[in-house]
């Protein structure tokens, strides 16, 4: 089973349990198909109620999480299992792609454009959905439209990414190019 380390071990500003995050992360890593011999380090910034998540490195696997990403939307400062699973399902698929030499060489997370990140997310979250992790497709579609335009081309591209398996980084870039040309004024 994948080893997961959660930082900090004890939370003081929010009512999170690192053990619970570890259990959920190990379960999702197994479902996504991350190698069993990797160690995953999840660094939670508990003072932030915002929800940004970033893969800081893949060797070793290090994920930086703003506390709001794991928080229950209806119960301030409480951990939400659904949020943890939703976030990690997406991020672990991204890591799986990065570890796959056939996927290609995407830029580091910090250098992704908003369009690239959102297109890749649609591909990742679609796969999470098929694993039974129950992410919100409507939420992801709204994200996608915000970044790729409120056009029929953007909607069709989103559907394609959501339903896809075995894409490459070149496919993600091609999807971004397709929506970019549809955003140009006629």
């Amino acid at each position, binding site marked *: 089973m994948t080893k997961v380390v959660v930082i900090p071990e004890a939370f003081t500003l929010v009512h999170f349990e690192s053990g619970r995050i570890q259990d959920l992360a190990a379960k999702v890593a197994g479902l996504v198909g991350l190698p069993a011999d990797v160690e995953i380090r999840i660094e939670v910034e508990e003072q932030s109620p915002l929800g940004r998540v970033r893969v800081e490195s893949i060797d070793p696997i290090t994920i930086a999480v703003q506390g709001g990403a794991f928080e229950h*939307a209806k119960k301030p400062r409480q951990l939400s299992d659904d949020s943890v699973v939703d976030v990690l399902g997406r991020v672990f698929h991204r890591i799986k792609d990065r570890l796959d030499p056939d996927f290609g060489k995407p830029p580091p997370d910090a250098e992704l454009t908003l369009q690239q990140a959102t297109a890749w997310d649609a591909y990742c979250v679609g796969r999470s959905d098929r694993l039974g992790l129950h992410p919100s497709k409507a939420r992801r579609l709204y994200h996608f439209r915000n970044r790729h335009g409120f056009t029929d081309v953007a909607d069709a591209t989103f559907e394609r990414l959501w339903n896809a398996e075995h894409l490459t980084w070149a496919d993600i870039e091609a999807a971004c190019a397709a929506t970019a040309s549809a955003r140009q004024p006629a």
Partner: protein
Amino acid sequence: MKKNMPPDELARDGRFVRVNMVERISDPRNGRGPTGGRVGARLTPDRPGAPDAARALMHGIFVGEIQALEGAGRTCWDFEVGAGSDDVPFQLKLDMARQCWDEARHCEISVKLSEWMGTEIGEFAESTFLFEAACNPDPVLRLTGVNRALEGLAIDVFNTMKEFGNVVGDPVLEFCEDWMLADEVTHVKMGSDWLRRLTVDDPERRKRALEFQRIVDKLFSGGGFRGDDEDSPVHLARRFREMAGFTVDEIDEISDLARQARAEARARTAGATAGAAAEAG
């Protein structure tokens, strides 16, 4: 039917979960990071989390619309028609009835807009602060707190969301916010007009009403959520506020209150952090 119904008796189905103001204000994370709680810093499309921040803000607007409908409805019912200090003119009730009509329409718009934005009803917690301001037993204070302070805040929020919709190219968001914004300007103007008419011979009562408005304004500018500062998530919509009967001095005062509220929140956090460090040491 009872008069002056308390906020905890508001009818909601199982999708809604309530969070109280004390919980929000006493959150030890306040003031440690960017302003605006879950919404974060200024709502601009270049922020990676902007779509989610817009969804959370829109859900806040939605529950605010429900409470505005409930509040205006209660104001129609809670007071008798007459000239006494506990009474209201019949025309004020007519204005509140018109506001109910607007707010009911806003609820329907908000439900459909939330669905468009990928948000489920009740996805985020509900705070009943708007209805709490609508529980003031003095009709003048109630209208000043709700129609001038909170509907004024609604002007700022709708304008911010409308601009966001325009920049990201979301025509549904932009037009929905624009239509609701037009109504909010009318609601604030009602508050401004009734405040002046009902206190024309009672400067003490006007003073109390404006003080109540200041308290509400300051509470909801807390932590820098709304203000004139560059990183405030919601900006003061000066032009629309002027159309709604605010003077430039009054708008400047709200801006100052927001800055003051933000400084106080930061001082509270600094105090709590120092206290925790001393305890640990």
